[in-house]
C-alpha cells in the first residue's frame, strides 16, 4: 500500500507545483519502491492523456453563434451601471443643489404670490424663499394696515412697493434705511434697508381688499414680484 503522502507528492509533481525538497523526497521514494514508481508512471500518463488526448475542439461556429446571440440579446451588459456611472444620479442631484444655491446667492430674495386666504388679518408669517420675509401685522386701527419686512441680508439695495393709490396711501416706514422715495404715485422705494427689517404702514382709503406688490433689489439682480393682498378692512 502506497501511503497518502507519497501519492500527494506524485500528484503535486504531476501538476508542476512540487517544490525542490518535495521532489527530492519523491525521487527517493520512487527509487525505493517499484510499486510507487509504477503508480507514478501511470498517473503521469493519465494526466498526459487528460491534457492532450481527450480534449475536443469546440464547434467551428461557436464563436459566430455566440456573437449572433450577443447581437440579438435584449439584455445589454451595461444595463446595470458601472461603479462610476452609479454616481451619475448623485452628480445630477449635486448639480441641481449647486444650481439652487447659486440662484439664491445671485438673487437675494425669491418670493411667491400670497393669496388672500393667507391673510386673515391676524399676524401671519408669509413664507418666502429668500432673505426677506413679509408678514401682515394685525391692527386695531381699521384704517391702517402694516406689512413687516424682515431682512436677513444687509446687502439689499432697495425694496420697492407698488400699490393702487386709489386704495392705499403710504402712512409711514419704520426701521433703519437710507431713504424713502416716491418716484410716482403708488410707488415707494426704500433705499438701503437694514436688518432686522422694516414696517411699512398704509392708510386704507377703501374697505375692499388691496394689493401691494413688493420687489426686492439685490446687489446683482431683482427678485420676482411678491404680491400681498391685504384683506378687506374690518367695519367699525
Amino acid at each position: 500500500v502506497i501511503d497518502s503522502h507519497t501519492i500527494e507528492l506524485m500528484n503535486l509533481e504531476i501538476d508542476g507545483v512540487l517544490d525542490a525538497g518535495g521532489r527530492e523526497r519523491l525521487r527517493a521514494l520512487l527509487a525505493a519502491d517499484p510499486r510507487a514508481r509504477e503508480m507514478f508512471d501511470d498517473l503521469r500518463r493519465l494526466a498526459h492523456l487528460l491534457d492532450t488526448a481527450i480534449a475536443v475542439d469546440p464547434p467551428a461556429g461557436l464563436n459566430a453563434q455566440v456573437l449572433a446571440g450577443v447581437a440579438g440579446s435584449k439584455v445589454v451588459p451595461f444595463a446595470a451601471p458601472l461603479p462610476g456611472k452609479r454616481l451619475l444620479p448623485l452628480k445630477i442631484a449635486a448639480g441641481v443643489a449647486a444650481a439652487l444655491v447659486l440662484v439664491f446667492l445671485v438673487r437675494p430674495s425669491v418670493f411667491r404670490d400670497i393669496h388672500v386666504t393667507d391673510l386673515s388679518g391676524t399676524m401671519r408669517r408669509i413664507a418666502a424663499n429668500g432673505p426677506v420675509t413679509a408678514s401682515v401685522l394685525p391692527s386695531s386701527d381699521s384704517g391702517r394696515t402694516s406689512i413687516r419686512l424682515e431682512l436677513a441680508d444687509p446687502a439689499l439695495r432697495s425694496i420697492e412697493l407698488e400699490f393702487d393709490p386709489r386704495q392705499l396711501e403710504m402712512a409711514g416706514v419704520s426701521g433703519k434705511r437710507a431713504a424713502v422715495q416716491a418716484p410716482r404715485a403708488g410707488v415707494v422705494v426704500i433705499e438701503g434697508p437694514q436688518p432686522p427689517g422694516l414696517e411699512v404702514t398704509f392708510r386704507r382709503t377703501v374697505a375692499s381688499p388691496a394689493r401691494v406688490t413688493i420687489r426686492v433689489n439685490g446687489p446683482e439682480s431683482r427678485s420676482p414680484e411678491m404680491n400681498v393682498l391685504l384683506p378687506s378692512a374690518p367695519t367699525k
Partner: protein
Amino acid sequence: MSNREETAPEFVPAEDPPTFRRDYGTSDHADLLCVQQCLEGRSDRFEEIVGRYQRPVFNVIYHMVHDYEDSREIAQSVFLKAFSNLSRFDQARRFFSWLCRIAMNESINFVNARRASEPIAGDYASPAASPEDEAQAAEIRACLRRAMRKLTPEYRAVVALRHFANCSYREAAEVLGIPEQTVKSRLFSARQILRDELKARGFGGSE
C-alpha cells in the same frame, strides 16, 4: 497503463518544474479591458473573449456532460450569460475563473437534470483521425471517456477544471466554492479512480 498511444518520458525531475498555467493567451488585463469596453456598449469586444476562452470552456463543459451537441448549446448559453451579466462581474477577480464558474454551474445543472431523466449520450467522434494510427488511440480515448463518466460530478468537475481549463488548485476552489484542500483531495482521488478503471480495462502501464 499501456503506452500504446502516448509514451511518457521516464521521471527525471526538471530543474525548472512546469508552471500550472499553460498558455491559452489568457491575460487578466486584456480581459478586463474587453469587459470594460463591452460595458461601455462595445459588444463587439466580446468576440475576443469568446475566441480566447471557447476551447477551455467548451472542454470543461464537454467533459462534464459528455455530449458534443449538448456541450455546444451549453457553451453558447454560458457565453451569453456571461455577456448579459458582465455588469455583475467583480473586476477584482479573474475573469476566466468567473467564466469557468458559470460553465461549471451550467454543466452541473444539465447533468443533474439529465441524470434524472435521460441516458447518457454517446461518444463524440473526433473528426480528425488516421484509421491505422488512431485505432488504439481511439480505444484508449474511449476508455478514458467512459472512465470519466463513471466519476461523480464532483470529481469530474475538478478533473475538468484542472486538465481542460488549466485551473490551479486555488482557481478550481474559487470556481467550485470549495476549499483548496478539497480540490486536491478530489483531484487526487479522481486520478486514482481513473487509473484503476483504465487498468481494469487492460490499459495498465505494467502490462
